[in-house]
Every structure is written in structure tokens, then in C-alpha cells.
């Protein structure tokens, strides 16, 4: 334990005043010093157990954007514990807690950001003997917490032009085993007996004179198939709503979602919707040269995509790609990007030229221009002008551009309907 200068000065002052009072024979001066001396004596008599242990835990289970919670555990037998709980990007809270027992203090922050974040650092000091003695400061944390995006419920989403496979929840244009009626056709090789439509056969091919059936007719259905969706996230930039932070040097607020957070949410929402529908979904990252998550269906694939999305983050400035990443044939490509530079738009156009159905999800958040300084607004306007031109070119190339805002679900639903009408499904 460390003896504090302030506490020691006060205690010595008390002794001095007591001595002074006795020497000059003034009982009021002697009594005046008693609160100081009795407080010190009381603290000494308490015989607090010194020592301090602390740790921080995150709450069990999946953490989603919003309120991120943790628990601070402090174990000290001292009279009180001075605790400072902080997190990067947040105002710290300092509290003087009662000691003497194991304490559990729930802590939380409002976090609009997703991904892996380091939060909740605890600096603590145990105080004993009325603040006369303190323990050495103890630092605990920060702890890493994986914050998942909250998937947005979507009604219907566009499907790729070409559905693949022999099973799935979608109806393809091929004839085969399925549920939707295609037509009634003459029975031929390969048709199953159970497919024979006896009523139609009787109506069309029954010879009333002989009472014998001529040609048999069978019901044919559209084959079922599954859709392959490839989600491509552009992690090369992560810009916040405040445009003055785009150049770097100032911090992006933690209570406002950035472009990458919106990209994670868009990717998670679209992946969740398609996986729930039994489709095959894969994930690739334009910013990192690593193996993509291959398209697959099922709950484990959702876990795989969810984990990969958590770790999507800007990593330096990767060199421009010569060729776009190879995607499965006939896949629907969903590109989540801010389109602040040419790379994502160029890739989208190339995929469209290769015959993929491409949807560009614009993940630029609603912008705040109030902090822009003189001159920066001109740069901002030039950047946005280029971006508008880029998006116009994309639309011209047949890529559907959907801003990821509150109306994104409706826009995607309308897009899905128009695709379905065009495909005759």
C-alpha cells in the first residue's frame, strides 16, 4: 500500500493542532483536531484487508450492434475502490465504490459499429484507512468483443438469371421434378407412370367405338433448382457519416454506423434471407486477397459468413486487381461498396459483362457536412460528382444500384418482382 501525501499532511496537521491546543491549554483547539485524529484511528482499527483483484467479462452469447454489455468484477477487502471504466471513443466514468466484498458492476456502451472492438478498460485503486493508504493502480482490459450486425428482415430478393442444380426452393424454367405445373404432354420415354393424367388421356384419346385408349398424356412440371448468390464486400475503405473525418486524423464516432458497418449489415441481411430460403451463398472481399467463402447452403454456412464478415476491415491499400475474382457460373453478384473509387464499379461492370446478374448496394451512410472546413467542401463536391458519374455508368451497364437505407427492402422487393416478370417465373 502507498501512503498518500494529502492524507498524511492532514493527519500530521491534526497531531500538530492537538499538540498546540494542549500546549496553550485550550480544550476547544484540542477538540477541533479530534475529527481528523479519530477518523485516522477508526480507519486503523478497521484493519481492512488490503489487495485488489479485478477482471472484465463480456456478456455470454452473441453480441449485436446496439447496447454492448460487460461486467466488471472487483474483489477487494479495502474500504473503498476507485474505479475508472473507459472505452476508446467514449467518455470514461469514474466511480468510488464501497469495498469489502466481491463486487459485480454491469457496464455498457452504445455501439453502432460492428466487427471486433476492444472496449471496457478498468483502472482501479483500492483505498484504505480513510484514503490514507492506497494500493498501486491496477489496469484490466480492454477486452475484445465481436459485434455482429443485426440482419434486416427482407421480403423478396432478386434471383440470378440462371438457377442451377436439381433441387432447391425455386422453380426453374427446365422441365423436371417439381411442384409447379408446366403442361400436359404426350407420354414418352422417361416419363413416370404416376405422371399420367388419366382424365386428360380419357378426354382426348378415348376411342368411344372400341372403348380403348390411344395416346396417353402425362403432366409435366417445372424442375426445382437453387440459386447461387455471391456477396462481395468492398472493405478497402471505411468512411463515417462525418465527412471531415474522411481524410483521417480525427476519430469516427462509435455511435454512428460507418460504410463498412452498413456493408456488413447489408451482406448479413441478404445472406440470411437467401440461406433461409435454401440458396447457396458465398462471400468474397475486394480488399483482401484471401480465399473467399465458397457458396454453400445451411446453418453452418451462415456461421461461416457471419464470422468472416466480423473480420472484414480495411488493410492498407491493396493493389488494383487486373481481373475480377472468379465467381460461380450463373451466380447473382451483390457488391456492397461506397463506390468512392473506380475499383468496385469496374469489377461490377466486368461481372455484368461476363453474364452475371449484378446488384450494387450503395453503403455510403447519410452524410454530415456541418464540420467541413473551408476548401474541404470543394473536394467533397468533386468526389461526389465522380461518384454520381460512376453510379450512372453502372446503371447504364445494366447493374441495379440500391442505396442501403430504410427503403432498401422495398427497392429490392420491387427489383425482384420486375426480374420475375421479365423471366416469366
Amino acid at each position, binding site marked *: *500500500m*502507498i501512503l498518500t*501525501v*494529502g*492524507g498524511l*499532511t*492532514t493527519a500530521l*496537521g*491534526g*497531531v*500538530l*493542532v492537538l*499538540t*498546540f*491546543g*494542549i*500546549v496553550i*491549554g*485550550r*480544550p*476547544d*483547539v*484540542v*477538540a*477541533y*483536531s*479530534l*475529527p*481528523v485524529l*479519530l*477518523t485516522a484511528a*477508526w480507519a486503523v482499527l478497521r484493519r481492512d484487508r*488490503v489487495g485488489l483483484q479485478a477482471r472484465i467479462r463480456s456478456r455470454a452469447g452473441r453480441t449485436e450492434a446496439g447496447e454492448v454489455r460487460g461486467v466488471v468484477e472487483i474483489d477487494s477487502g479495502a474500504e*473503498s475502490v*476507485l474505479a475508472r*471504466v473507459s*472505452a476508446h*471513443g*467514449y*467518455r*470514461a*466514468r*469514474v*466511480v*468510488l*465504490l*464501497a469495498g469489502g466484498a466481491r463486487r459485480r*458492476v*454491469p*457496464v*455498457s*456502451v*452504445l455501439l453502432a459499429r460492428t466487427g471486433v472492438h476492444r472496449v*471496457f478498460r478498468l483502472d482501479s485503486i483500492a483505498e484504505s484507512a*480513510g*484514503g490514507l*493508504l492506497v494500493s498501486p493502480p491496477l489496469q484490466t482490459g480492454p477486452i475484445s468483443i465481436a459485434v455482429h450486425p443485426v440482419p434486416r428482415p427482407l421480403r423478396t430478393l432478386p434471383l440470378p438469371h440462371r438457377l442451377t442444380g436439381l433441387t432447391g426452393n425455386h422453380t426453374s424454367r427446365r422441365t423436371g421434378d417439381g411442384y409447379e405445373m408446366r403442361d400436359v404432354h404426350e407420354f414418352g420415354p422417361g416419363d413416370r407412370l404416376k405422371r399420367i393424367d388419366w382424365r386428360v388421356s380419357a378426354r382426348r384419346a378415348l376411342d368411344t367405338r372400341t372403348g380403348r385408349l390411344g395416346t396417353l398424356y402425362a403432366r409435366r412440371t417445372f424442375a426445382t433448382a437453387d440459386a447461387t448468390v455471391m456477396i462481395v464486400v468492398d472493405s478497402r475503405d471505411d468512411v463515417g457519416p462525418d465527412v471531415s473525418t474522411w481524410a483521417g486524423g480525427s476519430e469516427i*464516432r462509435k455511435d454512428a454506423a460507418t460504410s463498412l458497418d452498413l456493408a456488413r449489415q447489408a451482406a448479413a441481411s441478404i445472406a440470411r434471407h437467401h440461406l433461409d430460403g435454401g440458396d447457396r451463398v458465398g462471400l468474397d472481399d475486394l480488399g483482401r486477397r484471401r480465399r473467399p467463402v465458397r457458396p454453400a447452403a445451411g446453418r453452418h454456412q451462415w456461421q461461416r459468413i457471419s464470422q468472416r464478415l466480423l473480420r472484414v476491415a480495411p488493410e492498407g491499400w491493396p493493389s488494383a486487381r487486373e481481373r475480377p475474382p472468379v465467381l460461380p457460373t450463373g451466380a447473382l453478384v451483390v457488391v456492397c461498396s461506397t463506390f468512392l473509387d473506380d475499383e468496385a464499379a469496374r469489377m461490377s461492370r466486368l461481372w455484368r459483362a461476363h453474364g452475371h446478374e449484378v446488384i450494387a448496394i450503395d453503403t455510403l451512410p447519410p452524410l454530415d457536412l456541418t*464540420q467541413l472546413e*473551408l476548401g474541404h467542401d470543394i473536394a467533397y463536391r468533386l468526389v461526389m460528382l465522380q461518384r454520381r458519374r460512376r453510379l450512372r455508368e453502372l446503371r447504364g451497364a445494366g447493374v441495379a444500384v440500391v442505396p442501403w437505407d430504410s427503403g432498401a427492402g422495398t427497392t429490392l422487393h420491387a427489383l425482384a418482382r420486375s426480374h420475375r416478370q421479365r423471366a416469366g417465373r
Partner: protein
Amino acid sequence: MSVLDRLLRLPPRSRPRPAVRLELEGAVPAWAVRVVSGVLVSAGLLVTIEQWPVALLVGLTVALLAHPGLAGVLLLLGAALLAQLPPELMRAAVLTAVLHVVLLSVRLTSRLPATGLVETRLLRHALATALVIQLVAQGAVLLGFAAVAVMPPMPWLAALSVAALFAASLAALRWWRRRA
């Protein structure tokens, strides 16, 4: 808007950063403890020394400057004031209480920023302890005045008290060495 206007225009203030939230059963802000202490100190001084500028200044100092050394300084100043004026029971009792309020305020809030929190449980415990100590101190004030009124002066008592204090200091030093 001219270029000069734009240059002179200050950027709007950005929103304050969000704060970490603690879920405590009960807590009082440090500024509230300091303000209450300042008011109590001002009121106490106003009753005893009857000079409102001094009372106000000391009260403001307690409310704004909760430094650990503040209690020590006020202790010495109060002792000097008491020694200068003729003995009076009311003055001694109120000044003793005022000093204790400052001690308690400094103890609870000197290491906290104004927005810091003092847990209610600790505050309750500290107040209960302070009440017991204050009762003992006020009892000592009464006893002291009664002893002076009843008993003749005893010069040898001073020497004995100083010796006792010296022994107590040695004991305190040994205690601290054992603990530190």
C-alpha cells in the same frame, strides 16, 4: 457569404462523445456531494465568524477545489482562528463539525472528477462512521469546556499529553511500516 466571413465562421460544436454506462444500485454525483458540503461549510462559518464574504469564499473553495490538502489547510487556519479568539462552546462545536464536513467531502470526492459518482452504499457507510466520530468529538468539546470550568489549571497535564502523543505517533509509524 464572403471568403472573410467563411474564414471567421467557427465550425459548429460537435456532439459530445457518448459515455460508458455503469449500472449501480445507487450513486450520487461528486459535484452534488461537493455542493452540499460547500453549503454546509458556508452556513457553519456564517454562524460562527459572522463574516459572509469569508464564509462564501471558504464554501466555494470546498465546493470547487476538493484537494486532499484542503482539509489540512482549513484545519490549521481554523486552529489559528480558535486560538486567537476567546473560548466559546458554540464556536468550537460548529467549527469542529465544519471541519468534519470538509474532511468527509475531500475523502469522498478528491480523486473524482465533477461528473464522477460516489456509490450510495459507500456514502451511507461513511456518513454513519462520520456521525459516530462527530458525536465523540462533540462530547470531547463539551467535556473540555466542563473541565476548564470545574478544575484548576494543571500544567503537568500538557507535558503528559505531549508524551502520550509521541508514543501514539511511534505506534502509528510502526503500524504503517507493517502495512506498507
